[in-house]
């Protein structure tokens, strides 16, 4: 997927101007929040469950160097194969190599953020393979040659009329904007693809090390199809998806579905351990698990940033994020969006390519309040801002003037008299520096602020008022 994270400001500005998009996103987020709330209301002791979930992730990641080989051993014991990919290119090469070696022509895919992360579809298509996304939302997005805009609802940015036109154009069916009818068309078209496909590619929500089991959640049934019908099943997961035991999995699975859609359990949960066994009539002949690092081990090494890897991809943080609801998923410029996207895009992409994503946040903390594994997004956001501002390994282009201004500000901070004089000077200059004033001293960003809001006016400062105020107070502190 093309990285456009450096353009987040422009894309956010354009999206913010799109009132229709904003209304769509607000409605969607409202609906998801309502669903989550319904689930949470029926959930006893969510706080305890969140603490438990956090502990499970903390432990499993602290033990990851042991869990990965254990997972590998168990997958092999069940007849599957494990592949290791250090980066996106390696993951693409592994999967392409498998497809070529096995003479694969058609691929069906289950919804997978990982596949977006490594740019799998383009690679497979360039190699002459037919690739079909099979989650309805993903299918729509693929037909439109776009990318998903929400973890849970990939086509949330499109209305039914747009989808109707798309189906009529690309599938040659009669125009209908009835969701029921559109869904029936997709079912019919995709059913043939499932039956003809040689390879099914999925992600995975969890991998259980003790048994080599892959857990997949969904509501539609396309993942079941993709893991049942084609002769090859390839699952691509990030190394952080590993948990130790089924019991660990049980703690996280309830948090995942409640946080995502308020469901106690998604419609389907598939627990897959290896390929088809002797004498069985269905299931893939081969099961391949691709474990992708792609920057994750680097994130793991920083004790504060590590929590970014706890993410279950439930989408709850997107649905409460005011910025996401204004700018939508595409504006973030890469695979992940919303609060978790600001964190992951910045850290998974090579340093310096993530753009100013950690600054695309008001630090309101609504995300952290709902996160099922208690990721403290604002804290991580601030940590990344710090790395970008002060660590040469994290370049962020910044005008030298801003840096100088900040240094001066900090220098004045320890000199109260100087600090007061500086604001007195600013107060003096204010009339001529104001937007439209004689000297255009007001920075453009402040002028812009002033176009939509009345700028506050300089007043006789509190420090000068204090002596008089102090005399009027009844309970004043007597000089000792």
């Amino acid at each position: 997927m093309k990285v456009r994270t450096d353009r987040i400001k422009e894309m956010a500005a354009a999206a913010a101007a799109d009132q229709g998009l904003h209304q769509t996103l607000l409605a969607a987020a409202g609906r998801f929040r309502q669903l989550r709330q319904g689930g949470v209301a029926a959930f006893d002791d969510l706080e305890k469950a969140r603490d438990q979930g956090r502990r499970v992730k903390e432990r499993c990641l602290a033990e990851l160097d042991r869990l990965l080989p254990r997972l590998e051993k168990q997958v092999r014991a069940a007849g599957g194969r494990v592949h290791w990919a250090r980066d996106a290119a390696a993951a693409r090469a592994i999967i392409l190599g498998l497809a070529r070696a096995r003479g694969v022509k058609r691929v069906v895919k289950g919804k997978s953020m990982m596949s977006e992360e490594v740019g799998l579809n383009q690679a497979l298509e360039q190699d002459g393979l037919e690739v079909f996304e099979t989650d309805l939302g993903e299918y729509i997005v693929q037909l439109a040659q776009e990318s998903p805009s929400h973890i849970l609802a990939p086509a949330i940015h499109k209305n039914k009329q747009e989808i109707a036109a798309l189906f009529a154009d690309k599938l040659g069916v009669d125009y209908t904007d009835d969701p029921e009818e559109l869904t029936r068309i997709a079912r019919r078209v995709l059913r043939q693809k499932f039956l003809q496909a040689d390879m099914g590619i999925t992600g995975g929500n969890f991998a259980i090390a003790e048994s080599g089991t892959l857990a997949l959640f969904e509501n539609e049934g396309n993942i079941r199809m993709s893991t049942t019908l084609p002769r090859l099943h390839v699952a691509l997961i990030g190394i952080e998806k590993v948990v130790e035991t089924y019991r660990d999995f049980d703690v996280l699975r309830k948090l995942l579905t409640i946080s995502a859609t308020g469901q106690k359990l998604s419609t389907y949960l598939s627990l897959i351990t290896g390929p088809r066994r002797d004498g069985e009539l269905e299931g893939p002949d081969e099961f391949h698990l691709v474990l992708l690092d792609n920057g994750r081990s680097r994130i793991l090494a920083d004790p504060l940033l590590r929590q970014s890897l706890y993410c279950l991809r439930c989408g709850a943080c997107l649905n409460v994020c005011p910025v996401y609801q204004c700018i939508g998923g595409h504006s973030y410029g890469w695979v992940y969006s919303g609060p978790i996207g600001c964190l992951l895009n910045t850290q998974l992409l090579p340093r310096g390519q993530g753009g100013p994503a950690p600054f695309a946040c008001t630090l309101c903390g609504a995300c952290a309040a709902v996160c099922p594994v208690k990721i403290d997004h604002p804290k991580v956001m601030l940590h990344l801002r710090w790395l970008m501002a002060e660590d040469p390994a994290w370049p962020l282009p910044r005008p030298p003037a801003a840096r100088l201004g900040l240094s001066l500000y900090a220098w004045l901070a320890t000199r109260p008299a100087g600090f007061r004089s500086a604001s007195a000077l600013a107060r003096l200059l204010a009339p001529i520096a104001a937007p439209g004033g004689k000297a255009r001293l007001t920075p453009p960003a402040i002028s812009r602020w002033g176009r939509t809001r009345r700028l506050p006016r300089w007043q006789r400062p509190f420090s000068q008022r204090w002596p008089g105020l102090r005399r009027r107070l009844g309970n004043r502190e007597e000089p000792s």
Partner: protein
Amino acid sequence: MSDPAREAIVQAVSAAVGRGQPTRSDPDTGPSQVAWLPPEEDWEAAAASLQALGDELLVIKGRQELAAALGEITARHQVKRAVRWDHRLLRRLDIDRLLAEQSVDCAAIAGEQDLRSLAAEAELGVTALDALVVSTGTLVMRGGRGRERAVSLLPEVHLALVTPDRRLRAIKDLVPLWQQWRSEPGGPPGSVTLVTGHSRTADIELILVSGVHGPKYIYVLALEFPWDD
């Protein structure tokens, strides 16, 4: 077999976690016995859960009632062909004959080609259940020979038969059941599928639509009679 990527990743992870004191996993404090519900308990909770999902649980008190239920369901969905698991419960109940009485062609799956064509063409798939979770209405099915996943996936209607001794209260009660399966020779089943309601999507304008890829209708028949005579 040496894979440089494997070595590099494991090494990077090991360095990242600062391998020192290994942390202990939480002790398994839960029950090791599977907490099956008492067979005499009624079906109200399970029926309510399935109803909330838009599906149906019917309590069947004898072979006549079973025949009648099959008649009604096949008529309602205009079923002409059905596929089923090759499962002892379904054989003992002689599901094929009962369906044949409704002019429905039903057979267990004999081979792979059979599976793909039959399951793809049949309107009805009939399975048994390894467990039914009553608080959520979740159907639990192990895969394997005679328990093909396609039967509960490809046809538009899924009919699942369950006996009173196969009920669990909550999803978390699957933990000991999973542990039991895992400790059997051959390890855990190659696939375990949990089904909570019929296939659905809300990908178009968040409007809920049923039956996108999997079945649109689910019926659970609760067998409240001695079927094993």
